[in-house]
């Protein structure tokens, strides 16, 4: 089962016929994801990758029963795509697009909050429930089935954590890439809460980075809700203040959003914090007794 996506998810791809959409939809289908079609305005009625193309998300919901969407639309139009999906009744909206203007996300996030949906991203690798559904751009083979959940702001660091988990004799239930932008749909705390309530997840790996207050918020929630062990890592211990490190959200603004401050509060709230990214897998193995 896992959380957010599973083998029963009916997935559509927004930006289906573009280069990125085509490449990753192909990979998702090969993985076994139930891709029921895609949306490209003015190409409705045609087929692509043997699946129907719709003009609107509403058509995809009505005609193919879509409940999950993955967005590869270019940055200028991505916030619009998020709002279209939310308005059409899509339940899980996963936005991969990187480089969306911040003011667009202020609007899209507020709009999505008025609808009955969960937004993941933007600027994220997506969500994978191992051996059921890959709704993202991650290399599927890394995520062997198991009972460890991952929440991460970063793409390749998620793959790294999954790989170490598998090499340490465990596997992955669901990995959620929440994204590295200043405004994202689902926060660290919300994603951790989903996995905490998932009966098929025994332990959680929480990977954050400098900037913002989401890890501290998650840690404070975990202090009272720690029913499974959580291993945490914060990237950017060596990042200087005031410099943006790749991700739009990864910038140290004040004393509270440095890696050291986040690691301290996480440890105080009972999270097993590792200093080295090389220790994520083996630490999880030792805390859950593998």
């Amino acid at each position, binding site marked *: 089962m896992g959380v957010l996506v599973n083998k029963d998810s009916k997935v559509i791809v927004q930006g289906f016929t573009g280069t990125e959409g085509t490449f990753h939809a192909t990979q998702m289908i090969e993985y076994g994801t139930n891709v029921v079609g895609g949306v490209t305005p003015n190409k409705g009625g045609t087929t692509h990758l043997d699946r129907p193309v719709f003009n609107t998300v509403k058509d995809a919901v009505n005609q193919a029963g879509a409940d999950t969407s993955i967005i590869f639309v270019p940055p200028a139009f991505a916030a619009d795509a998020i709002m279209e999906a939310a308005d059409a009744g899509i339940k899980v909206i996963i936005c991969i697009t990187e480089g969306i203007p911040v003011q667009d996300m202020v609007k899209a996030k507020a709009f999505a909050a008025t609808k009955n949906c969960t937004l993941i991203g933007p600027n994220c690798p997506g969500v994978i429930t191992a051996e059921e559904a890959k709704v993202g751009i991650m290399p599927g083979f890394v995520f062997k089935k198991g009972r460890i959940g991952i929440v991460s702001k970063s*793409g390749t660091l998620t793959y790294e954590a999954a790989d170490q988990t598998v090499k340490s004799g465990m596997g992955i239930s669901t990995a959620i890439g929440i994204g590295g932008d200043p405004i994202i749909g689902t926060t660290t705390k919300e994603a951790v809460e989903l996995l905490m309530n998932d009966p098929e997840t025994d332990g959680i790996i929480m990977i954050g980075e400098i900037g913002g207050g989401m890890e501290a918020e998650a840690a404070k929630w975990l202090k009272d809700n720690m029913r499974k062990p959580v291993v945490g890592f914060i990237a950017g211990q060596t990042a200087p203040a005031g410099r943006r490190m790749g991700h739009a959200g990864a910038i140290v603004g004040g004393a509270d959003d440095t890696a050291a401050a986040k690691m301290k509060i996480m440890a105080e709230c009972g999270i097993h914090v590792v200093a080295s990214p090389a220790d994520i897998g083996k630490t999880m193995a030792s805390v859950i007794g593998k």
Partner: protein
Amino acid sequence: MNVHEYQAKELLKRYNVPTQEGIAVENVTDALNAYSQISSQTGSKFVVVKAQIHAGGRGKGRMVEVPEQSGVAVVKSAEDVERVAKNILGNTLVTIQTGAAGKKVSKLLVAQDMYYDGPSDRKEFYLSILLDRTKKQNVIMYSTEGGMDIEEVAHNTPDRIFKEWVAPNMSLQGYQARNIAFNLGLSGEAFKNMVKFVTNLYNAYVGLDASMIEINPLFKSADDKIIAVDCKMDLDDNALMRHPDLKDMRDKSEEDPTEVEAGEFNLNYVKLDGNVGCMVNGAGLAMATMDMIKLAGGEPANFLDVGGTANAQTVEAGFRIIMKDPNVKAILINIFGGIVRCDRVAAGVIEAYNNMGNINIPIIVRLQGTNAEVAKELIVNSGLKVQSAIQLSEAAQLVQDAIAGKN
């Protein structure tokens, strides 16, 4: 993207935000012409001459070549303008924000003096607009304590800092603008002018896709005008696609030339002060790799994210950029190949290494993911002086050995 004060003021005027009037110049002759033009308009012999660099703290900053000269000067004669312009133009200004190396000044803003006498008291306030990441709303932050370092005010007198959040999809509402004017202690004409000022400024913030606008000081003149005397503005890089005119305001001379060069290869590079260079795919893994270098006893020399396409061309560009830094004693390449195949990256590393020819520091290549074993074999069989690793912990050990001079 940061813009200069004179550019920010031009942009504010488009939204009817009153600013201190001025003329940007690049040489002494133009500075003198600007002086006569402004003093004849204002009827005052006083003008303010301000060095145009992207860093703050100019008023307290000093010119390296002429230490008695600060970056902002009030002057009252053509002779003064000439002297100050000569002191500043082409010279280097060091402020609290520039770092010890300072910034070369190539432009001056000659601006009207707003501190004239009149019927009421002059006042300096502080006001900025930015995104509150926690509330996911834009916030207007303002204070009665203008003209000084706002972080100090926040620390010493937090009760003098006020905040007004603006609901998503809404403009600044009238009651909010009035709140701001009341909290700043204004009445009469000054109150009305402040309401207009903040309303228009918020429209500018949204209309320009700014990520931050800071007005310090926000000035009330002796005749109750509300004026932006200084303005720092940071524009959202992601939104520049819909503002082609703003894109042209970029001043590359304000940026690190190596970082600009990296950007041309779609590499995201930030120069740091350490001794171990690194090249990584993905921003999070790049930061994590830097942290690992530190834990292994080194100091990261840079942040470098090669993004989703690590091929021979980008790897070579990355090598060249890292090796410009003479402090670099070793380089760690850390690629998690997902969609990118590790054997392709390995071939790219080998090709780049051969093209470069003269690499005489240890190179450690850690390739994990798709075809990692094949990649390792390629590196080992290449006969190059390159260390290969698959696990992150192995790579950390190799970095430690390299720093200790063991490989």
